[in-house]
């Protein structure tokens, strides 16, 4: 049935309200007719009875006064009685009129007959009255006779008629009683039937609603109970189409989401676990590295010490070199002066030699002239020509020797000059060198302080490295803690049973590792706080360690 609980409740209450309305209508109808009857009784019958009895009373009163009027001797008393009788008569007339107004046809006839009787009496009364006014014994007797005869007869007749009316109405009342009793009986029966029907219908509707709602709730209860126990494999289908069904629909969505989230968490915790294990190893490596670094820093520090002493030595050497350089500059200046003197001497020698060369050349010319003269002299000059030729040859030789010496001295001069120049050039260079060496010595001093600073820095560096080592060890332990937390998380999650495929993947990844760790507990791996076998105790986790089902999945993980 595809009715929601709301619709069902509305339907049930509508039916019940309709039944109640029917009962009310029935009761109301009966009460109305009863009321009608009572109104008739009160407004007509009872009033008639009252009016009739009052009228009879009036007649009694009037007849009594009439007697007193007859027997009264005093005129004013008579007048007074007459007035009373008249007023009472008026009341009577009025009552009769009222009675007439509420009478049926039969009653009308009765009233007419009463009126006739009463008119008769009034005529008699008029006579009596006029007789009484005469106020004599005879008239009084006559009046009395009249009163007791015709008057009484008429009055009695009227009273009898009134009594007739009374009786008639009493009879009507008795009839009314019978009819109301009947009405009441009918109404009660009808009402009882209606009530019975209503009870049956209400019970049916209530049973139907309770049944359907409780069935839905039962279904939902089963499902929710299983979910509460962590079983997410529960099939949520074939549920009813009411609000509970909707609720279950949402629950299904929630369970699906939960499954996704749990799968994700499971994978993530696996990752965290492996990552933290890796991190732990890395941190330990880092710690080792830091220790090595510290050792290296120590080495560097000692090297720096050595360097500082070297620098000190350099400074000393530089100072010495500076002194030597300055002395060398002085010496070279001396040497330069000596060379310059040498150059001067050589130049003088060259001058002298050139004089010799000049002399040789002139001698050569003279010899040539002599030779020419001798040649011109012919055979006579032959001997002289030989001498002239010899002289010329000697002159030529001395000339060539002089020119050779000249050349040599020239080249010597130029060389010496060059040496002097070079020495002169060397002097500022050496002075420069001395200055530079001085700078080097200053720089070495600075270097010394710098090296000391470097040494200090290395000490600080060393401290930092030590701290790093400690920190990385802390990190390693932190990573181990993280791994154990991830394991714990996995255990916690394993409370939930997910789909077979997913759950197996999750469980195998969750459980394979601790198992392996348990197997390889003897190896060097720094197994973090490993609560491996605890997982087996958790409810909802189905560890399958014995048979080889998990091996294919286990193979995905590295064995170490």
């Amino acid at each position, binding site marked *: 049935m595809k009715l929601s609980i709301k619709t069902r409740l509305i339907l049930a209450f509508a039916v019940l309200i309709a039944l109640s309305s029917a009962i009310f209508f029935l009761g109301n109808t009966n009460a109305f007719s009863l009321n009608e009857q009572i109104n008739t009784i009160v407004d007509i019958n009872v009033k008639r009875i009252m009016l009739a009895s009052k009228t009879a009373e009036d007649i009694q009163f009037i007849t009594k006064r009439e007697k007193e009027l007859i027997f009264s001797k005093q005129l004013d008393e008579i007048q007074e009685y007459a007035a009373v009788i008249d007023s009472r008569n008026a009341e009577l007339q009025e009552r009769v009129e009222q009675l007439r107004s509420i009478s049926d046809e039969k009653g009308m006839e009765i009233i007419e007959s009463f009126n006739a009787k009463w008119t008769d009496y009034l005529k008699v009364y008029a006579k009596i009255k006029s007789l009484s006014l005469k106020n004599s014994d005879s008239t009084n007797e006559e009046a009395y006779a009249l009163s007791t005869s015709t008057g009484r007869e008429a009055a009695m007749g009227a009273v009898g008629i009134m009594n007739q009316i009374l009786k008639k109405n009493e009879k009507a009342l008795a009839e009314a009683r019978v009819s109301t009793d009947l009405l009441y009986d009918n109404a009660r029966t009808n009402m009882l039937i209606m009530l019975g029907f209503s009870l049956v219908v209400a019970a049916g509707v209530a049973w139907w609603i309770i049944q359907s709602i409780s069935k839905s709730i039962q279904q939902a209860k089963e499902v929710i109970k299983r979910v509460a126990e962590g079983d997410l494999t529960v099939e949520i289908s074939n549920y009813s189409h009411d609000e509970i069904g909707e609720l279950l629909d949402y629950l299904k969505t929630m369970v699906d989401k939960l499954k996704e989230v749990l799968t994700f968490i499971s994978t993530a915790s696996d990752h965290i676990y492996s990552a933290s294990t890796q991190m732990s190893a890395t941190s330990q490596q880092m710690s080792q590295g830091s220790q090595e670094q510290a050792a290296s820093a120590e080495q560097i520090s000692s090297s720096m010490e050595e360097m500082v002493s070297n620098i000190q030595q350099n400074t000393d050497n530089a100072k010495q070199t500076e002194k030597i350089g300055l002395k060398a500059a002085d010496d070279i200046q001396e040497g330069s002066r000596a060379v310059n003197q040498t150059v001067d001497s050589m130049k003088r020698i060259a001058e002298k030699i050139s004089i010799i060369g000049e002399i040789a050349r002139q001698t050569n010319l003279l010899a*040539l002239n002599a030779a020419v003269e001798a040649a*011109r002299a012919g055979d006579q000059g032959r001997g002289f020509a030989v001498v*002239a030729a010899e002289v010329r040859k000697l002159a030529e030789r001395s000339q060539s020797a002089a020119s050779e010496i000249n050349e040599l001295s020239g080249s010597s001069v130029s060389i010496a000059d060059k040496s002097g120049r070079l020495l002169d050039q060397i002097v500022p260079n050496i002075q420069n060198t001395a200055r530079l060496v001085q700078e080097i010595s200053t720089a070495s001093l600075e270097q010394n302080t710098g090296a000391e600073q470097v040494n200090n820095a290395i000490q600080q560096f060393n401290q930092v490295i030590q701290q790093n080592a400690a920190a990385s060890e802390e990190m390693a332990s932190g990573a181990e803690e993280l791994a154990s937390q991830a394991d714990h998380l996995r255990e916690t999650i394993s409370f939930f049973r997910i789909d077979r495929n997913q759950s197996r993947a999750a469980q195998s990844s969750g459980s394979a590792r601790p198992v392996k760790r348990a197997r390889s507990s003897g190896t060097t791996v720094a197994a973090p706080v490993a609560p491996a076998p605890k997982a087996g105790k958790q409810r909802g986790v189905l560890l399958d360690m014995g048979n080889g089902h998990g091996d294919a999945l286990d193979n995905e993980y590295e064995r170490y």
Partner: protein
Amino acid sequence: MQPNTVTTQSYLTFRLGDESFAAHVTYVLEILEVTKITRVPRSPEYMRGVVNLRGNVLPVIDTRMKFGFDRIEDTVNTCIIVLNIESEKQKVTLGALVDSVQEVLDIESSRIQAPPTLGSKYRTEFIEGMVKEGDQFVMILNTSLVFSTDEVLMLREVTETNAVDA
């Protein structure tokens, strides 16, 4: 000119650049060092000027220029050969500026070869012959022909007028 005897003749050899030349000693009066040479205005280019030779004016000819060589600066070896040229017309004494004077050579007439007729850079009529001395040739100049042209005569006139002026 000279007696036609096949004997040895004496020649004064001198150098112009790398070439050696020879002049018969009969023309040579003496050899002078280069002293101050007075330039003569409006004289030809090969005319170096005049020098005072023991009171006489001696015109000096730049032999390099005369032979059409490039002019070079004088050195200590540069000499003036005082020549005495006798032509049919007259007798002229002049100085020839040469790069250096070498020696007086005795050359046998038989060793003298005829000068080449073609391809020479000198006018061949100025060269009497060539003789091989050592590893090079010495060109024997026809001295009177070289220095007895009209130009030389004109030179003489120039020097004489200048001498008068001086």
